[in-house]
């Protein structure tokens, strides 16, 4: 069998290294490099689709597993595999990267080679994060991912790019180094119990950790993930990074990077430290609900479209965290579904806002108005994505939010009802922005002659719109593969919680 998982991150990495070898000092080969990088990015997408096709949805086990010793002295393995939780996130990464690359063709016109190299390296690291089952390997990808993103924001971003890039890097690192200590602590605990070091996640799952220690380790892991999500009050890096990043960077940031945080909660924080998770879950959920409402309120008053979308992410990811905290099948399935849906719809929003700002070099809502008649096709696409983001039934956002609310209600109706307010608010800020940008008279003369979507832009927008529809109409297609794994996860966390509660 082909080592599909290794291919999925090695192909973009190899592509990035290959692009480095092409001489392009004067920008003469920009066109070649653009096509080449798009081709390279489509290859891992094909690989991720092959993963999906070959995935056995009835099994909760990790599949496509590859395991080789890497640093035997510490029991570190190159150990990768996917289950229903990570599979679709990998597919999402493969899906969004070519779209993001395509979107950069109109806006990135200097140092195209380096841009493509960083984008592909970023993709490799992101896929690596989702497929790693060895904590060391995971941490390597987790940290390595920061470097290309830092360069993408810092070199090709907007005015405040340097500030935003450094803030992004330092915030994320500050969280992840504490996780590093906790990872080392876990490995040490394991060696104290069994005599050998290991960073193998599956072995560490079986480790029995004292409740007091669980608390600390849970906090160390969760703060790292909460910063990434970002959970209120760790979210302040996000508006800067999202707004200052180039469009392609924002698409990836919102589409994939944020999901690493929620994925980490699901994969590491909750199953590794179930008892601490039970203790902290209400607090996390409280922060999540605050984030949902706070993000929505702040989004409402933003004059800048990109910033509005950025804050809407804080709100939407709050739903995801709420679903995870509920830790029942509906909640977790909804959370994963919402992760995917948010990747598609918010990725799409950043793409469309980027398209607009490429044309007008401004993203202020007040600078627009009446675009409906000027750019009808653009307006149609924007409508679909906006409604998807709000969570209109029949589009992708609805399924996730509905399941999360269901799960949250079964767990604690108070959180569910507070989060319900967020659903309403999201309709308010999205539709209000939509109205101000697209309806009314054309207030600025420059806007009267804006060109509609070009074929290349369609190539990026169309798959996203289609995906929003498919995910809304055929949710089973996506819920099926994750079902077994989610069941197993919820059972494991719950069982350990009751077991430990009984023995105490």
């Amino acid at each position: 069998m082909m080592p599909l998982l290794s291919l999925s991150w090695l192909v973009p990495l190899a592509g990035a290294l290959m692009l480095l070898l092409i001489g392009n000092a004067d920008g003469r080969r920009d066109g070649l490099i653009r096509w080449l990088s798009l081709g390279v990015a489509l290859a891992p997408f094909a690989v991720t689709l092959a993963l999906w096709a070959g995935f056995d949805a009835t099994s909760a086990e990790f599949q496509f597993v590859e395991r080789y010793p890497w640093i035997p002295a510490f029991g570190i393995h190159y150990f990768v595999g996917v289950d229903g939780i990570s599979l679709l996130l990998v597919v999402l990464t493969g899906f969004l990267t070519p779209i993001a690359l395509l979107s950069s063709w109109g806006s990135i016109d200097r140092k195209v080679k380096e841009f493509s190299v960083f984008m592909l390296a970023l993709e490799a690291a992101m896929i690596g994060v989702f497929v790693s089952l060895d904590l060391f390997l995971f941490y390597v990808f987790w940290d390595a991912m920061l470097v290309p993103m830092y360069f993408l924001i810092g070199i090709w971003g907007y005015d405040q790019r340097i500030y935003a890039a450094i803030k992004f890097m330092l915030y994320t690192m500050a969280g992840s180094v504490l996780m590093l200590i906790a990872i080392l602590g876990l490995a040490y605990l394991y060696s104290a119990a069994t005599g050998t070091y290991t960073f193998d996640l599956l072995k560490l799952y079986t480790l029995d950790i004292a409740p007091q220690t669980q608390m600390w380790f849970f906090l160390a892991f969760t703060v790292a993930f909460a910063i990434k999500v970002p959970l209120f009050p760790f979210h302040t890096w996000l508006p800067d990074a999202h707004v200052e990043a180039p469009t392609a960077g924002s698409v990836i940031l919102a589409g994939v990077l944020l999901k690493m945080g929620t994925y980490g909660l699901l994969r590491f924080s909750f199953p590794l430290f179930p008892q601490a998770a039970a203790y902290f879950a209400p607090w996390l959920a409280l922060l999540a609900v605050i984030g949902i409402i706070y993000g929505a309120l702040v989004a409402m008053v933003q004059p800048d479209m990109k910033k509005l979308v950025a804050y809407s992410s804080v709100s939407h990811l709050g739903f995801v965290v709420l679903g995870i905290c509920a830790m029942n099948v509906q909640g977790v399935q909804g959370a994963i579904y919402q992760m995917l849906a948010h990747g598609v719809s918010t990725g799409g929003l950043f793409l469309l806002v980027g398209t607009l700002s490429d044309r007008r070099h401004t993203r202020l809502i007040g600078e627009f108005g009446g675009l409906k008649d000027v750019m009808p096709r653009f307006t149609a696409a924007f409508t679909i994505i906006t409604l998807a983001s709000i969570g209109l039934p029949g589009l992708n956002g609805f399924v996730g939010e509905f399941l999360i609310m269901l799960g949250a209600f079964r767990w604690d109706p108070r959180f569910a009802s507070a989060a319900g307010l967020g659903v309403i608010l999201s309709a308010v800020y999205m539709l209000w922005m939509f109205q101000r940008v697209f309806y009314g008279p054309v207030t600025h003369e420059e806007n009267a002659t804006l060109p509609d979507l070009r074929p290349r832009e369609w190539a990026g927008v169309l798959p996203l719109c289609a995906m929003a529809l498919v995910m809304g109409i055929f949710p089973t297609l996506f819920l099926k593969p994750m079902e077994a794994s989610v069941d197993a996860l919820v059972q494991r966390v719950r069982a350990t919680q009751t077991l430990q509660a009984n023995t105490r």
Partner: protein
Amino acid sequence: MFDSSLDAVVPMLCVALAALAVTGAEAFRAHDENMPVGGLGIVGLTGAAVSSVLLWNRNATSFGVIVADNFGLFVTVVLVIVGVLTIMFSSPVVRRDGLPKGEYYALVLFALVGMIMMATANDLLVVFIALEILSLAVYVLTGIRRDDPRATEAAFKYFLLGAFSSAFFLYGIAFTYGLSGSTRLDRIGVYLAAQSMSDNPLILVAIGLLLVGFAFKISAVPFHMWTPDAYQGAPAVVTGFMSTGVKAAAFAAFTRVFLSALEPFSADWAPIVWLLAAATMILGTVVGVAQTNLKRMLAYSSIAHGGYLLVGLVAANQVGKAAILFYLLAYAVTNLAAFGVIALLGARDDANDELRDYTGLWHTRPAVAALMTVCLLSLGGLPPTAGFIGKWYVFSAAVSAGYYGLAIIGVLTSVVSVFFYLRVVVMMYMADRGPALAVPARVSGVGMAALVASIVVIFYLGILPTLALDLAAASIATIF
């Protein structure tokens, strides 16, 4: 091949012979004759490397005071790498700045002799002699540009404070000798352990004095005052040499003395070293943030790295000892390469070592900027580089010894340090093009080769560290 009792000194001897050959060549050359004396140094260092490999696992001892155990040999190989890279970076610098070629290379090689001796010494007096050999050579190297007032000042300051620290160290030796009747490390350990000296205050005085001496050499806070000035004043390549070579040698001796002879008293000295480590990491990074001169910034950075090494010393377990060795290797290659970049980009009249000089380097010298970025990321401890594995190793030592607090200080300061390493990256890649660096028309081929080799090693150690990790673990297995 190695049967006599001189086996253990062979690596040192190779370098010493090369140094003498360089001195001789300098003395007898015609006035305008240009001899490739740097090459002689490389030959000698290669001899040292080969003999170290042959001596591996043999535990050879010469005169009872020089031991070529695996620990010493590992450090010797690190020092050989430092030496080779230094010579390669030096060759364009010596020509450009018009440094006295013969003297320069001879001093570098003599310093290396002292360093190797220090790493393999098993007797406090030999450690002291080694310390003096390397120190004297490095004092002169610091001030080798006599036309530069900064360098002269730096050399003088370094000399004065270094002399002080030597006195402390010697005084510590005297106390130790007075208590145990020997200067041999193995005998001191046995004797002190047998006598249950732990309630004797004099042993604490002895330990304290030795500690001060070592702390000066590894520039641990609060004994670091000389470091920023000396590092900034010296030519960049010399700074790279001393910030890696001297530190490696001093740490080897420090580890040997404190983790073998004085191991029984670790309850007494561990809390102090804990404080030194924490203060060194914190001050090195926090003050580093405020620097605008790249050399000075890297000076503070290397102070901070001394702190990380001290963490391994505090942990004092098997993991910690091996971690020190691996970290020394990773740090030496990375730091030397970073200073190599500064050296290669300098000019005779303008060191080009202000942070703003690097504005837009990406556009003028993309390859150098990329290599520098890798060095900086490795210093900051980001994967997949050598620096990441080094930090991982050191902190896992701390965690497995239960020093969670120290590990947390360590990782948090390394985040702060990333901030100032990134400032350089920001300058090179992101800042708007200001007054461009007066880049030399051509970056020397030898220098670039050394840089590329360093980067290859950095990635190799970062991605496939197994070989180096195993060697480091094997090195400490024999003696401690």
